[in-house]
């Protein structure tokens, strides 16, 4: 009986979404940069594009003709080359070194120079344990009345006591990364400094026989703030619990005082720790 009532309520209170066309302010066409220098020895990646009007039917414009380098505080330069679609690969495999500071420098075709702030590669924090101890029955949307079992990862890590630490978690399901806005998972250790922390990730559900890869990244405070703002701006806008729309301030800017344009995006350093498990009952 209760269930029937509940369904009546659901029916009558259902909210509604509709795509609308609205006149927008003129586009600013800003340079956008995305790059996370990792502590793993691999091909490092920088993506450069240009924003376009929000309502344009086309994709954002890749920038394919920039000169790109990553520079370390010690003066080592890592050059990058364009591959395709605004994606630049490092010419060599290399790893960011923990404790070292790096910055990204770009020269545009019109010789305008951009540079990020210095970013320090933070101490790597290792995953102590990855288990699958929890599961729940989820209603099957394709089969009304049916249910299936969902597993989620539980990860232990030990937070270093001496520093302020900022983390980001990344999850892969069968080698495919969760990239939805909601899956941006960040933490700071304000509330658990120096402890062994069990983390239950119920937002990342897995079925039997799927492979889970969990990546724990140590990031800077700047990157944490950027990601936190990014997540708020792409997940909660428009809800009553959402924040007000705002610029997502990054750490890259034009070097010349004559150019006041904002540069969107972020150059960050991530010290990575990984663990893997296959879901078995």
């Amino acid at each position, binding site marked *: 009986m209760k269930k029937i009532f*509940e369904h009546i*309520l*659901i029916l*009558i*209170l*259902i*909210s*509604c*979404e*509709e*795509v609308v066309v*609205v006149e*927008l*302010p003129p*586009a600013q*066409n*800003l340079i*956008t940069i*995305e790059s996370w220098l990792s502590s793993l020895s691999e091909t490092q990646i920088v993506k450069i*594009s240009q*924003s*376009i*009007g*929000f*309502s*344009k039917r*086309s*994709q954002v414009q890749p920038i394919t003709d920039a000169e790109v380098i990553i520079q370390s505080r010690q003066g080592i330069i890592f050059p990058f080359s364009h591959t395709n679609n605004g994606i630049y690969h490092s010419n060599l495999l290399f790893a960011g070194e923990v404790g070292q500071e790096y910055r990204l420098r770009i020269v545009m075709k019109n010789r305008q120079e951009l540079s990020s702030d210095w970013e320090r590669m933070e101490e790597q924090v290792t995953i102590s344990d990855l288990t699958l101890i929890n599961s*729940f*029955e*989820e*209603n099957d949307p394709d089969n009304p009345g049916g249910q299936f079992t969902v597993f989620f990862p539980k990860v232990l890590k030990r937070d270093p006591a001496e520093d302020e630490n900022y983390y980001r978690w990344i999850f892969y399901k069968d080698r495919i990364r969760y*990239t939805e*806005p909601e899956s*941006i998972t960040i*933490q700071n250790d304000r*509330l*658990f400094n120096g*402890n*062994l*922390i*069990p*983390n*239950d990730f*119920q937002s990342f559900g897995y079925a039997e026989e799927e492979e889970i890869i969990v990546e724990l990244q140590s990031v800077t405070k700047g990157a944490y*703030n950027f990601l936190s703002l*990014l997540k*708020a701006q*792409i997940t909660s*806008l*428009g809800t*009553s*619990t959402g*924040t007000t*729309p*705002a*610029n997502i*301030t990054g750490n890259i800017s034009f070097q010349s005082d004559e150019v006041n344009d904002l540069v*969107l995006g*972020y150059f960050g350093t991530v010290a990575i720790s990984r663990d893997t498990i296959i879901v078995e009952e």
Partner: protein
Amino acid sequence: MSPTLTKFLFCILCLIACNQIFGQISLESKLKLQGEYRLFQILDSLSKQINIAYSRDKLKNRLVEVRKNSTLQSILEDLKSNKLVQYHLEENQVVLSPYIKKSYSITGVLKDADTDEDIIGATIQIDGTNNGTFTNGYGYFSITLFEGVYKVKFSHVSYRSQTREIDLSKNIYLDAKLISLTTTLDEVEVSSIPNNVNITETIPSMNRIFVSQTDLEIPYLLGEVDVIQNALLQPGIKSIGEDASGIHVRGGAVDQNLSLLDEATIYNPNHFYGLISAFNPEAVNDIRILKGFIPPSYGGRGSSVIEVRQKEGNFTETRYSGGVGLVSARGLIEGPLKKGKSSFLVSGRQSLLNLSLNDFASTSVRRSRIRFQDLNFKVNTRPNNSNQLYLSGYYGRDRNSVGLNSLRRWGNSILNIRWNRIYSPQLFSNISAFVSEYNYKIENEEEPGAFVDKSKIRDLGFKAHFTYTFEISNEVNFGINSIYHNISPGSREPLGIETDTNITELGRERGLASALYGGHSFSLGQIYFNYGFRYSMLHNLGPRRVFIYENNQPTADTAIIDTLRFASGELINLFKRLEPRASLAFVINSATSIKSSYTRNAQYIRLISNTISPAPTDIWKLTGTYMPPLIADQYTLGLYKNFKNNIWEASIEGYYKAIQNNIQYKNGADLFFNENIETELLIGRSRAYGAELYIKKRKGKLKGWIAYTLSRAESRLNSNSISKFIAENHDKTHDFSTSWTFNISERVSASANFIYNTGIPVTLPSDKYVFENNLVPHFTQRNNSRLPDYHRLDLSLKINGKKFKKDGSIRKNRDYWIISVYNVYARKNAYSYFFRESETNSGVGEIVQYSIFGTAIPGITYSFKF
């Protein structure tokens, strides 16, 4: 000299028989005469024989009848009782002076004839004059008049008016009782003419909601009678949207409303994330919303006072009432503890289902669900006519499960003890002490580690208020308020055994907010004045750590250069503000007045929230080292006019409100568990101005009102003096609402609301860009556009149960059904826009209009009373 008078004087001369002699005669001397004389004739003659002092200029030479066998004393007494002269005896002289009328007071408590409950906000008018007063929040009234015979009329919108003839020759305590309209059998309107209190009232811009009466009948969402929904139909009171908690009064922020239940502060007056108010209509009697002039006895918030009074409890018999709707069930029991002397009331409300607003379509077990309940009680005793004692309480809880392992609970609780005393016909006092607490608790078994978060604000308060009435329309009010705030912004403890989370507690804040106030209201001819002051203070008290920042600017936690530690009870800061208040009403005639007011309010406590609508887990913060008190100055000017014997009332009122030290937030402000929260705040200013038009029909088969507000609310930061004012999130240029009830038959009435307003501001993106495969909107200027206009029609039908039994006798039990349809024509009103990537077209941005209610929503409730 006439022969009669000669005879009279002769008699006086002859009949000396008493101890006290004035010249040649005594007081007891009998005068053998009768007949009519002019006063001066008598006095002139007397003055030759006795020592008598008087002044012709001041006495009136009226005809005086002297009865047979009168003595000198009886003549003097007759002159006195005819109000011609007063006399007194000084040594051996009779001194006459003009008669001065004496003033006496009529005081009393106006009660419901059926239940003996106090009637709040009734008018007491002296027939044939403009003189009148109101019963105060405790049903008490006092009118001081010259001696005489008066017709005193008691009236109230929910009661049948009553006129009583009173011979006022001494102070009178009047036990007046009115009969409720709901208990009268004939729904035919009582022949009384509505009063014109709205014309003479010196508190302009006040809205009143009488929960007991017709205000019940208007259509409500899901049929749930709700005081806040009702308030939103009044001019100048707005909310951001259906799903938003809190109201904005004349452009003020949500935390600028002082919500009082009996005397105690309710910090979160909502259930169900703002969809339902915390006040159970079953237990509530009367609501006043003061949005313009705020009398000096209230303070501490910038924009309004929402004063909710609980019912008193029935003094004569035990009654039950209640109701069931789609969302909740409620019940009330009230009755005498000792008949006529003391009463009690207990009322409760419980949500019926696990409700869920967001994500309704989802059948996932992880969707968010909510439940709520509340409990009200009151005990009331009147040991005698001069004293009344109350004990009242409220406990409300919301319980929201989010996902599988997270549970959030929050709620208000209050306990209030109050003592009303009448010291003399002129002096009335209301003294109360209360505890008020708002807290929330989050239990989370998810990342990072399982924990319990707790936060609370607890107030211990004391109020003493005195009213001294000199005469009609001339009274002073004075008193003190003091509230000790103890805020625990947050603590986190590990949940369960395997967790290793630290016990973390943010520094508590303690402060004593006090005020001393005085006010005087009086009239001069057609002008009614009400002025006063409030001297408010906040003592920030230790123990507490205060961070010192470089250049004294709390820019970031890295700018901390020192930490000051204050011991328990040590004074950290003292803020003081003088808040002048003044209001005047110029009554042009009995149906027209012009009113103007000025109010300054200082606010020492703020809700820290950077979401569009406040969340139950937002914390309150006291004014302190880096957050100066908010100061709001409001000016109002209005014209009030009644038509057709006060059946129609109309007003137009303009206001301008300037707010200093308004809080704003940095982009992406981190407010959660932040020890250095001041580094995330910016201080700004805001202003709001507008005009409100209100037309109401108060009587007849068709009753209702029209409210229209033209307004603007905007703000800017202090730091940037060239920055422009930007529209606030709740700014609505045009806001129109109207509500009507029509009595179709004795048992059936129909009601309708219609609302139209300009869409609220929205920030539109200029660009889109991609970061980590997510499409991100880029914004240039805040609130650069508006949502589409909002409009909605709601209808309801009230069907009363039968009033008579089959045998023709009257049923004691009452019941009725209310059937309602909210959003009748199923308009998809925009609540907000989402900016997201198209699901079908990768890389293409979409603007999605989100509507909370995409359809018409029926509701049904059944209510009873027996």
